[in-house]
């Protein structure tokens, strides 16, 4: 599908001819690369898991409709997708809702945190309270910039009023949980693999070009182009660079070695 021109200033890619913002079916630098096109070379179990992820219907069961509206708006700011055409956006809320509903936890909870479920319920309420206090409207009705401003305050561990909305929650840990859940949903999707040039499932075929970033014959070389985050966004620079302060981040969660 051809890139679609849209009426907004908030997109990373613009038409090289007229400068108009455009949406793409596949953002990233690997045009023409499709992990799904290789699915005949995947094993049965993997193919099933990945395809189910793309097609399964996910009724929202954990969040109430009001909470779902708030959280969907929050997730859209944590990993924004306005640069994607509407048909090629990756659903973030349903996997989170499904995880919480079925209590698929990561095997632990911090002693200074409530359960994931309680934390998200309180957070949905807190985001709404922050929005009402600051702007007098619901979080999901706010302008993108207003939403970013509220989230930025949470990221900086200084959430805007009301003060007691986050009582009982270690904000640093909740933020990590929130971003982590978004990453788990987005980067589990083959469209995201195409975007970043990740080869995807590789059994039983494997890889044979291991060095110097060489692509396999079925992978695609990087084709870089000008990508600039929306000029007014608060989220393209790390907080440490904005403030000049050294940010003490918390320890990571995942296993790598």
């Amino acid at each position: 599908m051809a890139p679609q021109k849209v009426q907004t200033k908030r997109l990373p890619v613009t038409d090289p001819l007229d400068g108009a913002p455009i949406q793409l079916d596949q953002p990233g630098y690997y045009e023409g690369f499709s992990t799904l096109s290789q699915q005949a070379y995947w094993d049965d179990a993997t193919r099933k898991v990945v395809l189910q992820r793309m097609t399964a219907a996910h009724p929202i069961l954990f969040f109430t409709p009001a909470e779902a509206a708030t959280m969907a708006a929050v997730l859209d700011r944590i990993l924004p997708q306005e640069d994607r055409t509407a048909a090629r956006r990756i659903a973030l809320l349903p996997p989170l809702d499904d995880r919480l509903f079925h209590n698929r936890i990561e095997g632990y909870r911090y002693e200074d945190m409530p359960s994931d479920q309680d934390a998200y319920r309180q957070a949905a309420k807190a985001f709404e309270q922050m929005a009402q206090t600051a702007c007098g409207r619901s979080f999901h009705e706010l302008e993108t910039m207003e939403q970013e401003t509220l989230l930025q305050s949470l990221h900086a561990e200084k959430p805007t009023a009301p003060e007691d909305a986050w009582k009982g929650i270690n904000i640093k840990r909740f933020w990590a949980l929130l971003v982590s859940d978004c990453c788990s949903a987005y980067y589990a999707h083959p469209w995201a693999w195409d975007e970043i040039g990740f080869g995807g499932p590789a059994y039983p075929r494997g890889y044979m070009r291991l060095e110097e970033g060489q692509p396999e014959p079925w992978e695609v070389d990087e084709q870089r182009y000008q990508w600039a985050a929306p000029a007014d966004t608060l989220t393209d620079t790390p907080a440490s660079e904005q403030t000049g302060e050294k940010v003490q981040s918390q320890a990571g969660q995942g296993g790598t070695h």
Partner: protein
Amino acid sequence: MSLFDRNKPLFGSFGKPKDGLHHLGPLQQIKPPQRVFRDDEEIDYLIVGVGSAGGVLLQRLARAGFKVAGFEAGPFWDTERDWVSDETGSHNLYWNDLRITGGTDPLALGNNNSGKGVGGGSVHWAAFTPRFHPSDFEVYTQDGVGADWPITYEEIEPYYQLLEQELPVAGPAWYPWGKPHGHPYGPHPMGGVGDTLIDGCTKLGIGVSAGGPVAILSASRGDRPHCIYRGFCIQACKVGAKASTLVTHVPDALEHGAEVRDNSMVSRISVKDGRVDGVHYFDRDGNERFQRAKAVIVSGYAIETPRLLLNSACAGHENGLANSSGTLGKYLMAQAGNVILGRFDQPVRMYKAPPAHALTEEFYETDPKRDFARGFAVQTVGPLPIAFAKQMSVAKNQWGWGLRRTMMDYNHWSALGLLGEILPWKDNTVELADGKGGRPEARDRYGLPVAKVTFNLHDNDTKLIEFGKNKTMEIMRAAGATEVVQEARYAHLVGGARMSKRPEDGVCDKFGRTWDVPNLFVMDGSVMPTQGSANPGLTIQALAARTADYLISQGSAVFTANGRDLTSPPCRHSLSPPGTFTKGIPHLR
């Protein structure tokens, strides 16, 4: 089945799994386990947890003719049906049940360090298999910190040699650190991250071990194909090239009459007249049952082992079973596992090749020029997209468009892992979340109190991590990275039921026999008094093989007598799985 079937892709299974067969890799197919002991049948050794240690013990004891059963809380994996080449789809490999984590530097658990299912942690380890150094066994004597082991390097060395053949380990013919040694299988080719480590270290004059040591096949052996470099090692190796006890030792155990009772959660060890007489457990349907046994070996790893012993408190053992020393659940250790990420102008594609394929132990030992004791290793890691996204959100403190932008450069990043020795401290603990003594209360689905884990860094640890992190960043820059960031984290878990020379200093003796209960053993990572900066997997398996030799030498004395014989057994070379140690290294059966 011949590997060289012209009608099928080499080594591969592009079709569906075969009915009625249980797959342990694409080529190794077994009939589902048959033997089932009755609950009232008194088995010789009941092993709790069929992981790195439990799998080796099960295999050795079955071969020696004992009636032995391994109880495993998780499933008996069928690798073709249950495992996938996918990060999210591999969630079930880990111990995902609730635990509470706290302290000044709380540990992430779950997929960070805890396995569940037959094979345990060896299913999701990256399979780095460095040996411990001789100095690791006398840290207190040499440096006045930590603890000494009740054994020396020389006592475990024959078992390192044995397990390096059985897994087997691929790596360079000459490994210069610790006690120099070679490896039975050739080193693996380099991936992009390995090149990063080699380039950086070479510029700085630091030695590197390239292509291992890893328990990943660089050439096929028997019914296990060689590595295909797909990069999903820690999502479990569908290929069967990476060693896990599921594919290396459990099949031979079953062949020799062992039972694996999967989806069976042991809740309490039963003690009668000062001796263990069996275990209470919940079967796959959630029914509570009792299995009689002449002796019990707990191999549940550093959290579940102390938890089970604490949950088994009874009259005469009020503070937990085998805890007269008060050290049960204490001296828990994790290694510093900071991930150092560097961006290169040229693509790296770090998802190819095993995450584990090169390392340096140049900084392993205490250096008097530094202001801390002990040291660290630097190793390759290769985070896949989800893990990398989470790392970058922390390392660069990013979200929103910034995170999307960074992720679009995934293929330009390389990642090195610090593996730093954190010393054993008494205040790093596993306790019960039983609501007593100011502890929180949380219970699992069986109503058992879950583990409450507390972790605090001490001064030596903090200094070591700072130095090691900076050294790794220096290597990354020397390799040519134009942007270098890092994420603090921890890797591995050991300690919590340590072995000791004297009963007052630990939970068990040098063979894992608890000081308090003569027919109760602990054998897994929790017995380690210190941890070095080597990945613990190989040492856990070597210790388990040694304990098996000890138990075989003790014969029926363990089942009847209360005396303690600390004579070291001979290292038996006759108990290895077929086609491994005794027969050299054949490539086909």
